[in-house]
């Protein structure tokens, strides 16, 4: 009974958040809408990374590379072949799934820190690969590619920023639903089992290699979808947009938000978008030192991520309510 009650409350909460997210572009200025659009983009990427790192225990310091591939797939398709923006999203996802799957095969042999280094190599080399002469006719080399922002379809009376936000929100909801569905099922349990105890997982009949490479592919797919949306939102891709730091900030995002938490990626995405700006406002001389302080503060105050912190608060609130109810029940019965 109690469990069902909590479950229902959680769904009501999710519904409220979704409705609020839908209303957001109509109450905020277009610049803020653009910022929250970026939050949604990063949330999708972080979700993918969290599936890999949080749920499956494989550390990636190179997801910026898949993010870049997704962005370039979308930009090149729109720029060279005039593909409509919405059609580039699934293509970017599939390309990145294949790339992630292929990278996942050799990465199978690597564990922990070694895997982190191998993925970091991917992240750090991507900007230079994007400048490669042989690809320049498509990628535009260091110049990058400027793309046009799409208008709202069907003559809808919303601005480009509002429309793009709603479109991103729509894609994000689908990606969240798919992730939720994947993680609560058999595959999700297999992922967690492999993270917690690979030998035991194998003994129970889980095909560890297959699950791990598939997880890598799915995770890259999320990064690719996010990358494509990010390119469309920013209207520009260039090698300098995808430096190694991007990969690191993704990892920061999932740790700050909460490892192995679906809702945590939203907090992580908010952190990625807003904290650097706050740091810049506090100090022009050393914005990164301020950023570092924020990072330390989060790690100390919310060691299980913001999602864990919220969970604790939520639990306290529920406890207090149950206690209150119990007390009023006793009072009534007296």
């Amino acid at each position: 009974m109690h469990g069902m009650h909590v479950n229902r409350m959680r769904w009501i909460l999710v519904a409220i958040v979704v409705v609020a997210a839908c209303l957001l572009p109509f109450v905020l200025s277009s610049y803020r809408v653009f910022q929250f659009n970026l939050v949604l983009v990063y949330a999708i990427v972080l979700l993918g990374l969290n599936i890999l790192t949080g749920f499956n225990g494989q550390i990636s310091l190179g997801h910026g590379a898949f993010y870049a591939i997704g962005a370039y797939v979308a930009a090149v398709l729109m720029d060279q072949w005039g593909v409509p923006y919405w059609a580039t999203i699934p293509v970017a996802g599939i390309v990145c799934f294949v790339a992630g799957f292929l990278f996942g095969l050799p990465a199978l042999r690597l564990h922990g820190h070694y895997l982190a280094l191998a993925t970091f190599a991917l992240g750090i080399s991507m900007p230079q690969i994007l400048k490669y002469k042989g690809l320049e006719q498509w990628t535009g080399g260091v110049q990058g590619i400027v793309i046009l922002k799409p208008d709202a379809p069907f003559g809808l009376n919303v601005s480009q920023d509002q429309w793009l936000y709603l479109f991103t929100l729509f894609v994000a909801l689908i990606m969240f639903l798919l992730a939720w569905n994947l993680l609560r099922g058999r595959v999700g349990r297999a992922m967690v089992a492999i993270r917690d105890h690979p030998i035991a997982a194998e003994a129970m009949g889980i095909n560890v290699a297959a699950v791990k490479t598939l997880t890598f592919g799915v995770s890259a797919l999320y990064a690719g979808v996010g990358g494509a949306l990010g390119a469309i939102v920013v209207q520009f891709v260039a090698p300098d947009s995808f430096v190694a730091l991007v990969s690191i900030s993704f990892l920061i995002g999932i740790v700050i938000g909460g490892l192995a938490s679906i809702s945590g990626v939203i907090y992580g995405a908010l952190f990625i978008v807003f904290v650097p700006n706050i740091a810049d406002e506090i100090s022009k001389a050393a914005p990164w030192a301020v950023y570092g302080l924020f990072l330390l503060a989060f790690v100390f105050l919310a060691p299980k991520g913001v999602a864990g912190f919220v969970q604790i608060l939520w639990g306290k609130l529920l406890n207090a309510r149950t206690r209150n109810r119990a007390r009023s029940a006793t009072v009534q019965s007296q």
Partner: protein
Amino acid sequence: MLSKRVLRAIAISGVAVGLVAGCGEQQQQGSSDPGVTESEIKIGNTNPYSGPASAYGTIGRAHAAYFKMINEQGGINGRKVNFITLDDGYSPPRTVEQIRKLVEEEQVFFLAGTLGTPTNTAIHKYVNAKQIPHIFVNTGASKWDNPENFPWTMGYNLSYPNEARIYAQYLLKNKPDAKIAILFQNDDYGKDYVHGLKLGLGDKADSMIVAEVSYEVTDPTIDSQIVSLQASGADTFFNVTTPKFAAQAIRKVYDIGWRPLHILNQVSSSVGSVLKPAGLEKSVDILTAVYLKDPTDPQWADSPDMKEYKAWFGKYYPEGNIEDGFNVPGYMIAWGVTELLKKCGDDLTRANVMKQMASIKDVEAPMMLPGIKWNTSADDFALIESGQLARFDGEKWVMFGDVIGN
């Protein structure tokens, strides 16, 4: 109205980012455009204060320090300058975000001195669609001089092609039968230089250029390129490389006994970070183009503009490093913005800003080398188009000859 505010408050607090609030209402006065009030002019800027290019951050801090002085002196025509500079970390997506903040939230009057080629490329279309002056763009690329398609953007630096044309003019005059070998980095920057040299040489480009070899930023060395350039029989070497490769090239050229007329692009003209590692004795007689006064050069110590510069630096930017040459463009751009606003008078509209920017005639800016003047017109958006040649004497760059260029 009220309910909209309440909704906004709920939406913002709902996502637990209280700090995003605070978008000030901008009042508009008379005929002037957003960003201008009776007492203030708002100017926007982005610079990399963090990230891989944060060495450039001092440029933005110098801008701000200059306006601090202007404001203490009473501002411009009674208006204080509110200079808002934001960190973009040299990351194009963040530049887009910060520029949108400056234009849409802060409602700045115009943008000045935004730094970096990829970062400015990312906002090029946006600012022109919004019709926001995007001036004194701080990069060497040539694409900011395109008044027909981008009438709201104008660059600041002597552009790469224009620098190359200076070398071309020098060669045509002093060494018309030169056989030129070119080494260039295979990207926009390198190609800009090569293109400029060919334009400058005109009809003679085909006969004068005997070899053209490129390298990738990822190449470990450029030794083989140098050897093949020497084999071409060239007697003039145009060295279009970034600092690390420039040092390698200088050393290799010397070591294999090749003694061409060596022209080094200004990008790599730093004595400390290029010529010293290459070997000062191996760098003797290399030529390059210069257009700014170097604060460490003793020959300018007594010139009034240098004295003024140093006085300003000591008072308004004491935490900075006076030997850092990057502060000079920061100072000059802020000076340029100040002069521009004086010229605009009380007609503070964005259209007038561009009109005044496009009608600069023979302006001698402080810290420019004598004889190098700023000039623009409605169909020429390149501010600085001339420079002076300098020869390395084993210790420092010694200028010679006349100012070359338009």
